[in-house]
């Protein structure tokens, strides 16, 4: 039932990826490509393995004790689980935005500058330039430019989430992973984020997990449907939502289960 799509320009290539928590298999085996500078959405009911899949793309899963995986994940042509590959380097190239916004209890500026500081950049005009650019990319600059030194925890939920996006963009990753980035936000903040994702896909490869099928339809170029730890179908978003080839996909998108 697995239909690996062979994208023309794969940025991330996954082959036979399975993830286990202890003895229990949570995912796979999954094979699919995520094309460069496109938005790929991962949809499916809760517990279907889509977040697990996402977290294995930048080696966040291995932080969970007892987590084990098989198969390969390639960024361009480099296997990210290969011997001698440092997960820290992988995560610098593949950024991540989480479901719940998680700004550090620091100032707005320091939140965005964090990734730059830890990679050795010291304060200066280059750093402020990078921070400003990241905040502009996240469509936040105009709202916060006068209060960069204030605590990030005083911002609204939607602003905090865009700050987290800016923070991830500041280190200039090639890929941005988003784990239900708008699920805790109100409709207006959600619209902001979706607009943002559209703009980001000009420069970044985006992989987004979402519960919301309309959202997947709105923001993504490709959509993958996961169910019970398996990849059921992946296709161009328009095709998947109008002419799904699997009956399970059709059942899900028409709301018959999940």
């Amino acid at each position, binding site marked *: 039932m697995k239909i690996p799509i062979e994208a023309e320009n794969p940025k991330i290539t996954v082959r036979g990826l399975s993830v286990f928590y202890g003895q229990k298999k949570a995912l796979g085996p999954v094979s699919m490509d995520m094309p460069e500078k496109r938005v790929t959405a991962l949809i499916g009911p809760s517990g279907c393995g889509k977040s697990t899949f996402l977290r294995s793309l930048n080696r966040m899963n291995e*932080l969970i004790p007892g987590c084990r995986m098989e198969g390969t994940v390639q960024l361009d042509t480099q296997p990210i689980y290969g011997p001698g590959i440092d997960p820290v380097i992988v995560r610098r190239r593949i950024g991540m935005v989480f479901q719940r916004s998680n700004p550090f209890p620091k100032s707005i500026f320091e939140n965005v500058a964090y990734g730059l500081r830890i990679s050795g950049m010291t304060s200066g005009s280059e750093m402020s330039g990078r921070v400003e650019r990241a905040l502009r990319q996240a469509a936040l600059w105009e709202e916060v430019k006068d209060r960069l030194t204030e605590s990030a925890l005083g911002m609204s939920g939607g602003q905090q989430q865009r700050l987290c996006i800016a923070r991830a963009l500041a280190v200039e990753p090639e890929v941005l992973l988003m784990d239900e980035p708008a699920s805790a936000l109100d409709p207006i903040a959600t619209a902001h984020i979706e607009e943002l994702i559209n703009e980001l896909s000009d420069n970044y490869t985006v992989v987004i997990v979402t519960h919301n099928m309309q959202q997947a339809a709105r923001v993504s170029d490709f959509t993958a449907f996961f169910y019970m730890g398996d990849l059921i179908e992946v296709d161009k978003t328009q095709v998947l939502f109008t002419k799904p080839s699997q009956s399970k996909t059709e059942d899900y998108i028409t709301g018959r289960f999940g």
Partner: protein
Amino acid sequence: MKSLERSIEKSVEKSVFARQLRSRLGDAALVVSTGAATLLVLVILAVLVLDVLHHGSARLTWTFLSSPPTEGMTAGGVFPAIFGTVAMVILMTIAVVPAGVATAVYLHEYADRQARLTRLIRIAVNNLAGVPSIVFGLFGLGFFIQFVGAGMDRAFFSGAKVFGQPALIWASLTMAVLTLPVVIVATEEALRTVPRELREASLALGATKFQTVLNVVLPQATPGILTGTILAISRGAGEVAPILFTGAAYYLPQLPWHPSSQFMHLGYHVYVLATQSPDVDASKPLLYSTVLVLLAVTFVLNLSAFVVRSRMRHRFAGATS
């Protein structure tokens, strides 16, 4: 039949009522007994503080605070003891906080939690907290003075007795060992409350584990670490047994300007005044005042740690929301 049913209903109602009444009486009894216990504690504390204040404040003059004891402890003041106590507590804090925090970071962030060694270390830490304080005193004498100190003398002072005898530094380190479990346990507790989301945010930005611990985890845990420090200071300022053999002096009007000198200590001075004074009756008023000063010094040391902690909390304004 009807009447039988009714009588059954009634008796059921009655027993339900009785049960409710009983549980309500139980509640009331619990409130009264726990309240009485609390009251008892408060009364004991009040009597203690008032008694010390009443007897101690009369002799509490500036001369008492600023001069050494004179005339065989029957006159003069306690300044060297105040100085010694504060110096010992500061040195102890400098030693115990880094060691305790480092141990807790290792145990919580790096060690494999299921591993036998980790569990053994944890058991050891907990047992350390239960060791009687006089045993720490003997440990300090055996380890710090006779082993480390004497070794230093042989190595650096060609056998002259400099560090191989009771000294401020050894008393402070002995006290640091005594308070180590307090700091370790409080720090571990603080590390546990740092949200996983913050660690993940840092790691996902390409931070190493060490950078994450240093820049995100420890700042977030600082108020908790300071709570541990406060507890350690409270304990360290009041304990006497660990310093009996390791540095406290019976009478020493000079201030301990060198870590290898002995020092006077308020707690030990209280003991001396109460039992070792040549004229116990004459030193009794001084005894009360010394106790009052000891309480005040402990309080001030605690207060300063409190202030630091609330400053830290203020710096993360909004962190609690």
